[in-house]
């Protein structure tokens, strides 16, 4: 077993340390469960994989707790390990964006090399980091409506809060779809690293 493991990781570069992987596999299912149950709650239909509102709501609430805790843990880890610098786009990314877009739009066959994440990934991950708090706050407003009536007026009331929650979830869903697509098709070595840690 040990030799198998050494074969798998020998000479490989650590891409995702275990806390990153653990947290990724905590919030990823929570986001997907939240999206599917959330769409069911907005527009009940069996297409979303639920047969009744009761089970969809329970799933949504469990996903909400997992997402909140794993998101907070990820923010803490990003801060303590300083790896947020790998995620937030900087000036270099803006400068290299045309090069990245040229490749993605098939205008060149030369694949540009980036340190860890390309500018597109950075934008997607930063958008997740910004949209998930919106989703948490608006979701809590709808979950504990009595306590959040006054803060909800900042969004215009509980009805506009519902709308904001829906629009944020639509954005997260689109980003998640893009993220999954590129994760599956860009590089299988990188895809493997989110499971094993090594590229």
């Amino acid at each position, binding site marked *: 077993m040990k030799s198998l493991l050494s074969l*798998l990781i020998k000479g490989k570069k650590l891409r995702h340390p275990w806390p990153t992987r653990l947290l990724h596999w905590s919030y990823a299912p929570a986001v997907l469960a939240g999206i599917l149950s959330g769409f069911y709650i907005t527009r009940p239909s069996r297409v979303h994989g639920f047969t009744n509102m*009761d089970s969809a709501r329970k799933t949504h609430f469990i996903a909400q707790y997992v997402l909140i805790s794993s998101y907070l843990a990820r923010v803490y880890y990003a801060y303590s390990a300083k790896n947020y610098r790998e995620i937030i786009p900087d000036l270099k990314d803006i400068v290299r964006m045309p090069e990245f877009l040229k490749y993605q739009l098939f205008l060149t066959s030369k694949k540009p090399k980036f340190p860890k994440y390309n500018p597109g990934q950075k934008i997607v991950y930063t958008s997740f980091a910004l949209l998930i708090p919106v989703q948490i706050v608006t979701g809590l407003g709808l979950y504990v409506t009595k306590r959040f009536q006054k803060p909800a007026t900042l969004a215009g009331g509980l009805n506009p809060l519902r709308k904001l929650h829906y629009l944020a979830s639509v954005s997260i869903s689109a980003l998640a779809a893009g993220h999954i697509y590129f994760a599956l098709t860009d590089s299988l070595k990188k895809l493997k690293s989110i499971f094993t840690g090594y590229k």
Partner: protein
Amino acid sequence: MQGKTNHKLLEQLIPRLLKPRAGESRPPVIWLGTNTCAGDMLSLLNSLDPGYRSLLTDLIDFRYNYLLGTAEGDMATGILDETMAELPGEYILVVEGTIPTRSNGLYCVIGRRNGEPLTALQAVRELGASARYVVAAGTCAAFGGPYAAAPNPSDSKSVQAVLERRVINVPGCPVLPDWLMGTLAHLIRYGEPELDDLNRPKLFYGETIHNLCQRRHYFDNSIFAKKPGDPWCMYKIGCKGPVTFADCPYRQWNSEHLSWPVKANTPCIGCVSPEFPDGDMPFFEHLPDVKLPGIRTTADRIGTITGVITALGISGHMIGSIVTNRLPHTLKKGFSGNGMLQKLLKKLR
């Protein structure tokens, strides 16, 4: 049977509760009508147990009522000045309707004083400053409601927005007679009731319509009405019950407690909420419309457009990747490029 007994008990109890105690006088009440459809006053007239007559004889001393008062002109406005001067801190001010603030409030003139127009803005500010309690009757007075809806040419505002003191909000479009009668009775007999974050009495607005709804089990089991008139949960046709705080499901309308919108097979439109009506329209849609500069569309359409763009983007990129041989190359490289799979199989053997 038990309900009938309880009802009989209430019939006997209510008059006793409302009768002024020894030495207690009926507090003076001023009811101003500002920019209003008069629906709230008309709704109050439908009150039963106590009825309007009992309200006048047992509970309050109506000094001024814009709709039912017989005095007019200087005589009517004179009562307002008289009450302010003689009974400061004693009278209850009830306001029905929004307060127009544009052009110094000239969009609503409630009478004339010394030959000059007396605006609702002026009257509410003056009377509100020395009232014992200020009650906003109906959604317009409480939060703006339909009379402050877009484009709101008179720049109408709620009572709270023009006063610097606490206003007790009793919203509803119109207000349910019990909500207003109950609030007035509580103020007179027991003082200020417990209020929620939006200054509404928790007694009537303490729980969501959704949690009190008789059709809640249909919601939990996803048995939904497809159109108004269906006898199931109204959620899919825009019921605002989950985000509306009121006791309509068990109190019901009017004072005979006969029915309410969902029982009549139509969705709740959330008329007691501060965002009503602009913030929760269309009434028969689950989510309010999305307003962008120059565009107004449904939230569902935004969701559909986003979904289509995402699907087109992903499928377009995938086709491009296949045509340019990028995807086959990635897969080939991933599975056999470094020979990892072969090494692994060899080791296992």
